[in-house]
C-alpha cells in the first residue's frame, strides 16, 4: 500500500487547515480522541491531518489512536479513551460491525461519537459522516462511459470491464460496487459481463487478482478501482503489457477510481486516468468536527444523525472547473 511521506503530511496539513480555518472553537480545552484504523492511503492521511491539526488549532487536546486494523486493539483504545474522560470521539473503524459496536460502547458511556467516512452497519446511532458512495461511484463510471461510447463507435466491439472491489465488510466498498454496476446496467449494450476482483483493500491481493484477470482476458479495456490508492498497482500490471497509455492512444485502457486523491489528480492531469469520484475529505472532516464540537458545547451525550458528502466526479473533461476544488489536487499543489 502507498504510505504517507512526512513532507506530504505537511502539505496535507496546510491544505486542510486552509479549508477548515473558519471552524468555531466551542470545544477549546476539551479532550477529543481520534481513533482510526490506519494511515495507509492519501485519503486517510489527509483526513488525519485535517482533523488533528484543526482540533489542536482550536485548543482541543487530541488523543490519536491508531488501531492498526486490529478490531480488539481499537476496542481497547476506545475504552481507554472513555476511561480517560474524553469529551468526544471521532472514529474510523475497519468495518461496519466494529463501527456499530464502538458507537454503542461510547453512547453507553455518554460520550458523543462521530464516525468519519466509514459508516456503521446500524445507521441510527451516532453522528455518521459518509460520502454518498453509490452516487459518487456512478458519476465517476458515467464519466468513463463517455470514453467507452467513443471507443465503441470507433471499433464496434463491446468493452471488457473490470472492477477492483474493496473489502465487502466495509459498507463503502459495497456501495461503490453498486454504483459501478448501476452505471454499467444503463449501458448494457456497450459492455461484456464485468469481471470482479476482490481486493480486501490490500494492494498485494489486488495485484495478484488483476494479474490473473488480465492474463485470462487480455482484452480488458475498462477498469474501475474502488479506491485511488490502487492506481500504482494497475500501472504495474498494464505497463509491461504496453497498455499504460494516455487517453487517445489506441492501447489506452479506460481508467477510473474513487477518492479524488493527489495520485489520481496527477494521473488525470497527465491523461492516464479518465475520471475519479471525489469524496471531499475536508468537508467530511469539517462535518465530523462540527458535529462533535456542537455536541460537546451543547452537552449532548448521544447525538445521532447522518451527514452526507454528496461528492462529484473529476474527469479530464471537467478538470479546469472541478480540479481546483478537489482535495487531492489541492494537496498536489501544496507539495510544489
Amino acid at each position, binding site marked *: 500500500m502507498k504510505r504517507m511521506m*512526512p513532507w506530504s*503530511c505537511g502539505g496535507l496539513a496546510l491544505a486542510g487547515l486552509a479549508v477548515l480555518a473558519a471552524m468555531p472553537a466551542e470545544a477549546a480545552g476539551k479532550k477529543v480522541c481520534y481513533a*482510526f484504523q490506519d*494511515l495507509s492511503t492519501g485519503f486517510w492521511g489527509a483526513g*488525519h491531518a485535517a482533523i*488533528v491539526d484543526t482540533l489542536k488549532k482550536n485548543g482541543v*487536546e*487530541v*488523543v*490519536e*489512536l*491508531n488501531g*492498526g*486494523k*486490529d*478490531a*480488539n*486493539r481499537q*476496542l*481497547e*483504545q476506545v*475504552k*481507554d*479513551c*472513555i*476511561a*480517560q*474522560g474524553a469529551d468526544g470521539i471521532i472514529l474510523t473503524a475497519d*468495518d461496519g*460491525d*466494529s463501527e456499530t*459496536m464502538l458507537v454503542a460502547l461510547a453512547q*453507553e*458511556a*455518554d*460520550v458523543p461519537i462521530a464516525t468519519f467516512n466509514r459508516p456503521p*452497519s446500524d445507521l441510527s446511532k451516532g453522528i455518521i459522516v459518509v460520502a454518498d458512495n453509490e452516487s459518487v461511484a456512478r458519476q465517476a463510471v458515467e464519466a468513463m462511459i463517455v470514453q467507452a461510447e467513443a471507443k465503441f463507435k470507433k471499433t464496434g466491439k463491446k468493452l471488457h470491464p473490470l472492477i477492483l472491489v474493496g*473489502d*465487502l*465488510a466495509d459498507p463503502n466498498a*459495497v456501495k461503490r460496487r453498486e454504483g459501478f454496476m448501476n452505471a454499467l446496467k444503463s449501458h448494457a449494450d456497450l459492455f461484456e459481463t464485468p469481471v470482479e476482483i*476482490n481486493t*480486501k483493500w490490500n494492494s498485494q491481493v489486488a495485484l495478484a487478482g488483476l494479474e490473473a484477470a488480465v492474463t485470462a482476458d487480455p482484452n480488458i479495456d475498462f477498469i474501475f478501482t474502488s479506491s485511488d490508492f490502487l492506481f500504482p498497482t494497475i500501472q504495474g500490471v498494464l505497463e509491461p503489457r504496453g497498455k499504460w497509455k494516455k487517453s487517445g492512444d489506441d492501447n489506452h485502457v479506460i481508467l477510473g477510481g474513487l477518492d479524488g486523491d493527489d495520485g489520481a489528480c496527477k494521473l488525470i492531469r497527465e491523461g492516464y486516468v479518465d475520471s475519479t469520484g471525489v469524496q471531499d475529505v475536508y468537508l467530511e472532516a469539517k462535518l465530523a468536527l462540527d458535529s462533535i464540537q456542537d455536541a460537546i458545547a451543547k452537552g449532548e451525550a448521544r447525538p445521532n444523525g447522518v451527514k452526507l458528502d454528496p461528492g462529484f466526479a473529476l474527469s479530464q473533461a471537467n478538470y479546469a472547473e472541478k480540479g481546483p476544488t478537489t482535495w487531492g489536487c489541492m494537496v498536489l499543489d501544496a507539495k510544489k
Partner: protein
Amino acid sequence: MGGDSRSPAHERLFEAAAIARDSRGSIVNFFRRILLSEYFILYLTIFYFLSMAAIFPDLATPRNISNQLSNVWPLLAVATGQTLVIIILGIDLSQGAIMGFASVAGGFVMATAADPNLLGGSPLWGTVLTEGGGWLAGRSGSVLIGVGLMLVVGGLVGLINGYFIARFRMPAFMVTLVSLMLFSSAGIWLTQSQNIVNLPPEFTQLGSGDLVSFYFGEKVEATIKRRDILSFLTYPMVIALALAVAVEIMLRFSVLGRYIYAIGMNAKTAAISGVPVRRVIMVVFVLSGLCAAVASILYSARLGGGRPTIGAGAALLDIIGATVIGGTSLSGGRGKIVWTLIGVVFFVLLGNTLNYMGLSAFYIDVVKGGIILAAAALDVARNQLLAGQAA
C-alpha cells in the same frame, strides 16, 4: 600521625565516613537485589506506573485501573499457553490463527441471524449457516456447545502441531507457521472475510460481564450512569485467572510440570532420564491451543462476533512479547505463569501510558518499541549479572 593519637573529632569523622560507606553500600545492594530478583519486571512495572502516574494523575484513577485490568485478561489467557511452549524451547506462531478459526467455528454454531448479502458466499451457507443463524441458533445449550466446539478446535490444532513436531522432529517454528497460514486462510475462506455477528447475549456476557462492580461517590441521581460503574470482578478475569492459576499449579507441583522444565533445559538428557518427551511436547501444544481457544472466546465475546481476523496482525507480537518480557527464557527451561502475568500487565500499561502522552500517531509505535527494547536490554544485563554471580 599514629593510630592511637586520633582526637575525638577525628573519631567522629571516621564514624560518619563508615556510616556513609555502609549506607552507600546498602543502597547499591538494594538496587542490586532488585535487579537480580526474579520479579525485576514487576518492580520495573511498578516504578514505571508510579513515574507515569506522577505526570498523568488520571492514570491511577479507579476508572482507568479497572479498564486496564479488563484489557489484561484475554492476553493473559493466550500468553499462558505460549509460556508453556517457550519453556520447552519451542514457539507457537499459530495461536493467532487458532483464535480466528475458533472464533469462526463458534459463530457458525451460535449466531442467531446472518446476512445473506455478506455471508451468502460462504461454503457453509445454506447448511450450517442460514438467514436464521448458525447450526444451533436459538436452541438451548447452543452457547455451551459453541464454547465447547471452540475449545475442541483449539485443542485439535494444537494436537496437529504437537504431533508433527514430536513425531517427525520438525521445528516448531515451521510447523506452527504452516498452521498459521492454513487455519487463518481457512477461517477467511469459510466466512469470505466477513464477521459473523448476532451472537447470543449469554455468550457476549463472557467477554465483558461483571460479577462484582462498584461505584465511588454519592448517589445523587435516581440512576447511576454506566460509565460511573467500575468493573471489579468480571467473567474474563475469573476465566483467565482460573486458567493461569491451574497452569501455574501444574507447572510447580505436578510431574508433568517437572517434565516440561526438564525438556526445556535439555531434551536429550530428559529422554535418557525417562521423560516421555514426545508425549509431553504434544500435551504442551494441545494446552497452547486450548489457551488460544479460551482467549478466542473472550475476544469474540467482547467484540460481539465470530471474526476470522481475531489474532491477526500484531497480536502475536504482543503475545510473545509479553511472555518474554515477563522473564520466560527463549533459551528454554525457565518461566512462570506469574512472570507472564507481569509481562502482560507491563504491555497493557505501556499501551495505556502512550495514549496519555498525546504523541502523534506517527511516533507512538516507535516510542513503544524503544521502551520494550530498553526493558529487554535491562533484562539481558540482569541475566548476565546473574550468570556472572553463578560462575
